[in-house]
């Protein structure tokens, strides 16, 4: 068993990663995760990444070895869906206390494993390492090994304490754990020439099920999905698949590549976001399976299915074209999605005014240029403030992004749609893309925006008043300016204005505050000073004013 540091180094040296491949030797040694700058808002840590990647395994107990923060603050917050067991949604944590930190947490971990097995009897237990037990030297590999032997049940250590790096690194560390301890440990009940693995697909909002019917129709069996709606025995026997698809994210490239290396399972990287992408992915699956010996009629059947589905999808998007005419969309997401949904949005008639390329590779950028032309607005980095200004300035009619920038758009009263992992709608495959267009339309055409952008009536009034009192208007309309001058309240308590007081002073030739008080309603208390000022001011001006 290699150390954690060695594993991290191996992950950084991933030959399958395009971004890594284009780096110089020196850059590569630095690793692919940029250290987060202190003082910034945080993305997830490595533990978070590992948990995201593995938690969708439904019949496994996920035990977090750490203080309450790691699990207590984060559990049950993902939109993955299960077709069977809901054990994965139960949170287990050792909730380390101060005493555990002083005396070590290994015994507590071992007891916790036993408690889970006694009460829940899961297929397997995944034990997640976190920062503090890593610091105090709890050896979870050893505990898991002992527990597996004692309880005759797979107890898998997932060694990814948060402080080793980013969420993405955690995804990969989770993959390494699967490769080391799970994949290839069981045999499937039966195999077919149509068995595939989906790697890096999490079945968020059940989106896997938007694509699965198509695969079912073709007779393609998902032997294992890592990890959406996954089951332990499926991933343990996933080494018997004929081909694999690395879905969208690069989070688990190490799993796909090493399975190719170890078990000869060819893989391709594809996406089910977007119409053409879905078609391309189905084609690739068929091609790889046929190459591995599946009957060749699969190719023809796939093409027929693609033709039917595409015709349906384009047809379903068609009615939105006139509605979307001239509307501008801003796409703030990473990697493959920066171009994979572009085609569908363009087809629906939306104009893309920008797409972020922060997490995209060189090929991703090429694809964007292909789709959006060479003057495509590729945004490398945009601060929330810039984003807000851009939206407030109506340079885009809708923003599609992840949850983090949600409130930037909404507070600028601009339509926004979640297309990252926290979304509550499923957008995969042909039905998913039509659903996305539908959602965009719902958002864009809502009558709410117009009401929200209109200033409150009193604000409009206040603005008009301000204009009235400005010197420019005084020149333009002296009568109006004089009126507003005379309307100034002198006595606030009894609401007596300047005009009334001036008239009284002129008409009765008043000289003192007391006299003014006698002739008007002014109290002369707190406004004494103001009345005095009027009395000593230029009498000619006063007379003029009175006339």
């Amino acid at each position, binding site marked *: 068993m290699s150390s954690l540091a060695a594993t991290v180094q191996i992950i950084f040296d991933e030959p399958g990663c395009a971004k890594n491949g284009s780096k110089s030797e020196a850059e590569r040694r630095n690793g692919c995760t940029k*250290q*987060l*700058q*202190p*003082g*910034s*808002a*945080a*993305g*997830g*840590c*490595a*533990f*978070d990444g590992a948990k995201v990647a593995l938690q969708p395994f439904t019949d496994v107990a996920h035990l977090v070895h*750490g*203080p*309450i*923060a*790691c*699990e*207590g*603050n*984060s*559990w*049950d*917050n993902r939109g993955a869906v299960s077709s069977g067991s809901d054990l994965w*949604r*139960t*949170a*287990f*944590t*050792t*909730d*380390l*206390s*101060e005493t555990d*930190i002083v005396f070590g947490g290994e015994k*507590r*971990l071992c*007891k*916790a494993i036993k*408690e889970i097995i006694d009460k829940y009897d899961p297929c397997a237990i995944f034990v997640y390492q976190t*920062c*503090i037990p890593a*610091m*105090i030297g709890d050896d979870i590999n050893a505990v898991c090994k002992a527990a597996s032997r004692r309880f005759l049940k797979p107890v898998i250590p997932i060694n990814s304490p*948060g*402080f*080793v*790096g*980013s969420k993405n690194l955690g995804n990969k560390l989770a993959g390494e754990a699967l490769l080391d301890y799970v994949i290839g440990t069981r045999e499937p009940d039966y195999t077919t020439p149509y068995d595939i693995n989906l790697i890096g697909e999490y079945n968020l909002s059940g989106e896997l099920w938007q694509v699965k019917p198509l695969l079912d129709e073709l007779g393609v069996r998902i032997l294992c999905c890592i990890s959406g709606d996954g089951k332990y025995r499926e991933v343990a026997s996933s080494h018997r698949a004929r081909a694999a698809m690395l879905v969208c994210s690069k989070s688990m490239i190490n799993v796909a590549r090493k399975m190719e290396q170890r078990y000869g399972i060819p893989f391709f990287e594809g996406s089910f976001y977007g119409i053409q992408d879905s078609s391309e992915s189905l084609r690739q699956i068929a091609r790889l399976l046929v190459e591995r010996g599946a009957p060749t009629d699969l190719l023809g059947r796939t093409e027929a299915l693609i033709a039917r589905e595409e015709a349906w999808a384009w047809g379903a998007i068609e009615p939105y074209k006139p509605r979307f005419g001239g509307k501008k969309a801003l796409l703030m997401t990473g990697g493959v999605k920066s171009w994979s949904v572009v085609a569908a949005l363009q087809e629906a008639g939306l104009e893309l005014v920008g797409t972020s390329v922060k997490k995209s590779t060189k090929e991703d950028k090429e694809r964007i240029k292909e789709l959006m032309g060479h003057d495509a607005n590729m945004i490398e980095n945009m601060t*929330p*403030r810039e984003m*807000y*200004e851009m939206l407030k300035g109506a340079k885009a009619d809708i923003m599609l992004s992840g*949850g983090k920038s949600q*409130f*930037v758009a909404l*507070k*600028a009263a601009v339509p926004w749609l979640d297309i990252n992992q926290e979304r509550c709608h499923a957008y995969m495959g042909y039905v998913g893309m039509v659903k996305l267009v539908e959602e965009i339309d719902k958002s864009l055409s809502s009558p709410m925006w117009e009401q929200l952008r209109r200033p409150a009536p009193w604000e409009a009034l206040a603005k008009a008043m301000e204009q009235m009192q400005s010197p420019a208007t005084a020149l333009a309309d002296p009568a109006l300016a004089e009126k507003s001058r005379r309307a100034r309240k002198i006595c606030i308590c009894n609401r007596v204005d300047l005009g009334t007081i001036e008239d009284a002073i002129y008409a009765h030739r008043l000289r003192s505050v007391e006299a003014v008080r006698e002739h008007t309603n002014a109290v002369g208390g707190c406004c004494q000073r103001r009345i005095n000022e009027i009395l000593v001011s230029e009498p000619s001006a006063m007379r003029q004013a009175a006339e």
Partner: protein
Amino acid sequence: MAIVTTPTKACAVNPLKMSQPIGGAFAFMGLGGAMPLLHGSQGCTSFGLTLFVRHFKEAVPLRTTAMSEVTTVLGGYENLEQAILNIYKRAKPKIIGICSTGVTETNGDDVDAYLKLIRSKHPQLAKLPLVYVSTPDFKGAFQDGWEKAVARIVEVLVDGPNASRLRDPSRVNVLPGCHLTPGDLDELRVILEDFGLSPSFLPDLAGSLDGHIPDEFTPTTVGGIDVGEIANMGRAGWTIAIGAQMRRAAEVMQAKTGVPFRVFERLCGLCPNDEFMTFLSEISGRPIPLKYRRQRSQLADAMLDAHFHIGGRKLAIGAEPDLLLDLSGMLSDMGTQVTVAVTTTQSEVIERIKTNEVIIGDLADLEDLAKERHCDLLITHSHGRQAAARLKVPFYRAGFPIFDRLGAGHQLSVGYRGTRNVIFEIANLVIAHRDENDQPTPDKWRTGRVLPRCAGHRSSTVATERSVA
């Protein structure tokens, strides 16, 4: 009255508890132009951030010192220094609130000393208040973090007595516990103002997380109590602390400025609000406004209407100590039996809860006991949704986080009006649940020869409920 027990199991299942640092950071979110900073690994901040965003549906300022494996070994001084300088430069906050985490507490970072060093090295920070509070993850819970942070804010930011500054009896300090929502604070503000008092809330989440649309984009909090206003809190005539957790901050305030305080442990329920109103009337010298006499009467009427449905119910409740005392107390006053009570952390109030046993435990304890004792009403935060689905009982969401319903920030429970709302909501849940799941059939009572299972003094109310329904 209640016996407090702590289960000896090694594995917490479905935690009720959340960690101290985010409770501390939450307190800083009620300060104007503030930037809370967690000194720890990036995940500590990221999880907390997600939790707040899901609860409030608002952008939430929260930053990290981004401790890595290496900096954890070497000590966090440089990360803290960089973080403060970066925040100072980019976000231009009026205050930075720093909470430690498990990582930095385990390796023993001396943050107070670090801050002194940082201040001496960077004179530009001289006028920027930096408030540090020690909140290790492996001790206490969310409420403790809040308690410590507020006490610390008072200690650092409130000015001591000053001869030239006169006390203003119409000014009142309000120290709200973390179980109050922005909506509760707004309600309290109106009540106090109706008595002619001008309140300063510390922290004031109603200014920052009440879900309004700010005119400008700001990376820091978009409202809350100003640092200047906090400094002047020593001029107030009284301090009102809400929830036992705020006693500590109120004591610090009194020790520092001499402002007397009174703790109101509960503000949900008829009698607690009678006490509160009487107190306000005394300190303001004004009679209880007509409005509140009317509201009291409305609450009494609501209690009459709702006791048929709430009375006799067997309640399973999981909440932080002060919220537990408040809600279980109110329901117990209505005739509900507090059958299972689970809380997160030690507190002086939990042994006074009107039940036999209070468990410092998790939601699995709550669920198992609720099942065993046939509870028919569940109250806890949103994480209780799975238990509620399995138990098939009416489920009222209360506390933090509430992420699967909208309007968590405006859920009202204080005052006569707030209590009335809570009572109606819970009663309606019970009614809806009965309509959907418990319609009478010709055979319903045929096999029902078994005596009512509820032990104790309130079995008669079950019969009442049936006859009314």
